[in-house]
Structure formats: C-alpha cells, structure tokens
C-alpha cells in the first residue's frame, strides 16, 4: 500500500534520510519511531509528497509520488505536525474547501463533510471559527480534513503533540477507530503511544531504519535477551563465586552479576543477582529455579525483566551515539 524504496534526502550538507526502505501492507497500522531529528518528519513528508526524494522512490497504492503526484495525493490523507489550519475559517467552511480541493463532487460533498464531522466528534463545533477552538479540537479538524476523501492511506505526524492528557486519550481513541479500516502510518517520539496504537514499529535514527517489526516481538527479541532478577541465599558465606558459576552453567545464560556487591554475602543474608539470557533464548525462569533447587540455594524472588520497546529504543539510540562518537574520535 505504501512503498518506500531506498529513499535519500539531503538539506544542504545535512543528509537527513539515508536509504530508508519499508513497505506497508493494506490495513497495517505502523508507527514510525525515532528521536527528534532522526529523519521521521522528512520521511513522512516524502510519503505525503510535500518533499520529493533526492533518490529512491515512494509510491502510494501504486502511484509514484514523483511521476503521478495527483494520483498519489488523492489516495493519501495527511495530518502534518502541529496541524496547520486557516484559523479565520469556520470548521464546516474549511472542510468544504478541502473537499473541493480533493475534487469531491458537489452532490457528495455535504455527505462527506457530515461523515467526517461525525467521525471526528466535531458536530457541535461545525460552525465555530477554527481559531477559537482548543488544541484538541483543532487536531480533530485536521484529522477530519485528512479523512474527507476517504483515503486508503492515512499518515499522521505526531498526532498527540501538545495535547493535554484528556485530549491525548480522545485522539488515541479516534486514531484507533480510524485504524480499523485503512492503512496507517503514525509518526511519533512517544513510545507508549506507538506501542498502544500500532501493530508494527519502524524505528528510525540518524536517517536510517534501525529496527522494524511487531512491537511485542521487537521488545522480546530486542537487541539483548531477557534479564532475570533474583534474590537468593546460598549455603555458605562467600558463596558468590560458586553461585555465579552455577548461573553461568545454565544453558542460554550469558552473564550473571551480583547487584548488591557492596554488602558481604553470608549464610544469613539474601543476595541479589541479575542473570542475563542470550538474545532469542526461551524463558529461562524454570531453568534458573531448577538449578537453584538442585544446588540447595533458596530463592525468594525470581522475575524476568523482558525488554520493553523503550529499552530496545534507547539501546539502539545509544549505539548510534557511540558510533557517532567513535567516528568523531577517528576523525
């Protein structure tokens, strides 16, 4: 439905997008995640046809944004960041204007407008001036305008930016409703938002796609395996070494660390451990518990800290920063 193929874009000396590629299947709701300045908005603007790529191509439902710009734009609804609107116009007036721009025929126009007003809960403010509306309402006007021509693809850039918590909840609910029958790309730097709304996450940083997949799967696979937090009591004082060795002999365990090293461990004391599993390993809780029991070690806590999307995200960003630092050092 949306094809982004090896797209590059530079602004003067800044190479903002460096070979981004992904494809959205019909009905997919994808989140484009990344820190500020990662190239998200530039990528989205190229999908919307506001910017054209220096190289590579973007197509919307088969229409290339460079060679068939009109066809591509008709198939796409776009809500730009910060929802720019004509403040002096009334809501219904503005939607009428947008409907005419998108070539919705005169007879179908009132119905399309009424439908958009209803879908975005705007009926009671339809004859108010846009400038007099709250930010949440303005956001909905932007969404209604993007929906008017019933596009197959909806692209939203930071849809909850600058809204208060109630408005954020309302906008998310609306976005969830809209996502039921169309392909959507939501650009955001708010992780929980993407986790909640999307069935696919594309993480972009420094102009490149760093990770792409289902949020739960991304979090599970992550860049590291899961980490297990334990509180155990050994049999003898100074058991540290033996315990560490024991954890590490469990299949798939790649590291074990006492996290309360400052306290001397003795027979009466509970000690805390952090055991990390290999990337892609199965759940190791059972194996850890079995090993402990077999070696006569008491356990009072065993919990698996699965990767959250946030951890995966931060880890990816850190790696990029490290690369950049190394690059600078080398230079």
């Amino acid at each position, binding site marked *: 439905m949306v094809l982004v193929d090896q797209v590059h874009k530079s602004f003067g000396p800044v190479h903002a997008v460096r070979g981004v590629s992904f494809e959205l299947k019909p009905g997919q709701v994808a989140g484009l995640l990344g820190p500020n300045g990662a190239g998200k908005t530039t990528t989205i603007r190229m999908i*919307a*046809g*506001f910017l054209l790529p220096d190289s590579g191509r973007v197509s919307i439902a088969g229409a290339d944004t460079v060679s068939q710009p009109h066809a591509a734009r*008709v198939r796409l609804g776009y809500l730009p960041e910060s929802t720019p*609107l*004509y403040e*002096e116009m009334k809501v219904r007036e503005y939607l009428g*204007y947008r409907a005419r721009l*998108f*070539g919705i025929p005169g007879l179908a126009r009132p119905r399309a407008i009424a439908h958009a007003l209803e879908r975005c809960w705007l009926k009671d403010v339809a004859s108010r001036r846009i400038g007099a509306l709250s930010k949440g309402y303005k956001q909905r006007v932007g969404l209604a305008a993007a929906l008017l021509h019933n596009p197959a693809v909806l692209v939203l850039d930071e849809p909850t930016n600058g809204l208060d918590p109630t408005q954020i909840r309302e906008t998310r609910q609306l976005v969830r409703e809209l996502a039921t029958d169309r392909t959507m790309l939501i650009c955001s730097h708010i992780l929980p938002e993407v986790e909640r709304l999307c069935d696919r996450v594309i993480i972009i940083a420094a102009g490149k796609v760093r990770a792409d997949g289902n949020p739960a799967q991304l979090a599970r696979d992550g860049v590291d395996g899961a980490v297990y937090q334990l509180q155990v009591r050994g049999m003898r004082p100074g058991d540290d070494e033996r315990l560490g060795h024991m954890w590490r002999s469990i299949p798939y365990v790649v590291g074990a660390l006492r996290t309360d090293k400052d306290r001397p461990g003795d027979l009466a004391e509970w000690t805390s451990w952090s055991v990390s599993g290999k990337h892609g390993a199965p759940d190791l809780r059972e194996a850890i518990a079995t090993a402990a029991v077999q070696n006569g070690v008491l356990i009072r806590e065993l919990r698996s800290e699965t990767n959250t999307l946030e951890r995966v995200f931060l880890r990816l960003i850190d790696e990029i920063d490290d690369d950049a630092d190394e690059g600078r050092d080398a230079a």
Partner: protein
Amino acid sequence: MRTALTIASRELGSYFRTPAGWVIVALYLFLAGVVFTLSVFMPGRPASLRDFFAVSGWLLLPVAPAISMRLIAEELRSGTIEPLMTSPVGSASLVLGKFAGACVFMLAMLAPTAAYVVVLYRTAEPAPDPGPIAAGYLCLALVGSLSLSIGTLASALTSNATLAFMMTLFGLLGLLFVPSAAPFAPAAIRPALMALAVTPRIGDFAKGVVDTAHVAFFLGASAWFLLLAVAAVEIRRWR
C-alpha cells in the same frame, strides 16, 4: 483549473474574513474619495477622471504589495502550505488561484469608484468622454495585475509577509525608475531597458490611448512573474 478557482475563492473570502482586507479597502476608498472631491469634482473643471486615475495609480504602489504580501508567505509561516501542497493541487494552480483571488479583491476594491463616474455623468455638462475613463480603468487593472504578480512572486520567496511587502514595493519602484536609469546604462542594453519602462505606457493610457502592445506588455510581464512564482513554489518540494 478547478482547484485554482477553489483556492481563489478561499483567498478572496479570507480578505473579507480578516480586518486587514476591510482596512485596505477603506483606506483606498477614503483617499480616492478625497482626490475625487478636491481635484475632480470642482465647478469649472473639465469632466475628466484623469487626476483620480493618476492618484489611484500611485496609491497602488503601497496597496498592491499590501494585498499580495500574505498570499503565500502566510501559508509558509503558518505551515498551512503543507496540507495545501499535499492535496492534489499543482503548483501552477496554487499560484494562479492565489493571484486570481488577489486580483478579484483588487477589482472589488476599485468597483465602488464607479460611483464617481456616475456622479460625473449626472452633473457634468458636457458629459465626460467615455474613452479615457475606460482606458483609465483598464490601465489600473493592468498595472494592478502586474503589481500583484510581482507580489505573488515575492510572497512565494519568503515566509515573512513584511519582507514580501518590501520586496514588492522596491520591485515596483525599480520598474518605475527604469526609464530614469536607462541613460546611464551601457548603450547595448539601453533599448531593452526602455522597452521595460512602464511609465510611458501608463501615460498613453491616461491620454485615452489603448495600445494592444501595452496591454500585451502588462499581461506578458504578469505571466512571467507568475511563472517565476510557480518555480519558487515547486522548488520547495525539491530542496
């Protein structure tokens, strides 16, 4: 073309939805009214609107840039250019629509001055010559269209409306002073500069002479500036 009309009608509406549009109309009509009362509508004066047209022409100098300065600059400043340029609207339709909206607004601003013509016909004896009056209005419309096309270009170049106003004003002043500068220019480009001069053409219109070459000049020059404005808008997608 359909989208150009849509944009033009929204643009025209936006002049009247904001106080700015009404203020421009009011100021222009006030000054035009003063000129009419003090220098045209006097006993013993020949029944001619010549002074009114001369002053109106000069008034266009600040008024046209004020009309055109926000056309595209405001869209760039507020970001509304983004939903506009991502809707199925070509850059040419966008520029043409904006320009047409401004032109219709300018004509709407000039329209009430038709009352002076009516007053003159009712009161003057002998009746005024219709030729120079028609030529005068045609000249105002053509000069206005040229000024607005320069203004549209300026407005497409910056997101700052004040800057767009200044660029247009200085562009127009430059055009007016071309004939005075021509004698100092190298002989090779002197004829070209003289051909670009607007003031002699306006002078012909004031005499009631409608030369098609002059009409073609104003329309052609307007088209040329609009073409540059289209390029200025289109280039934003690529940079």
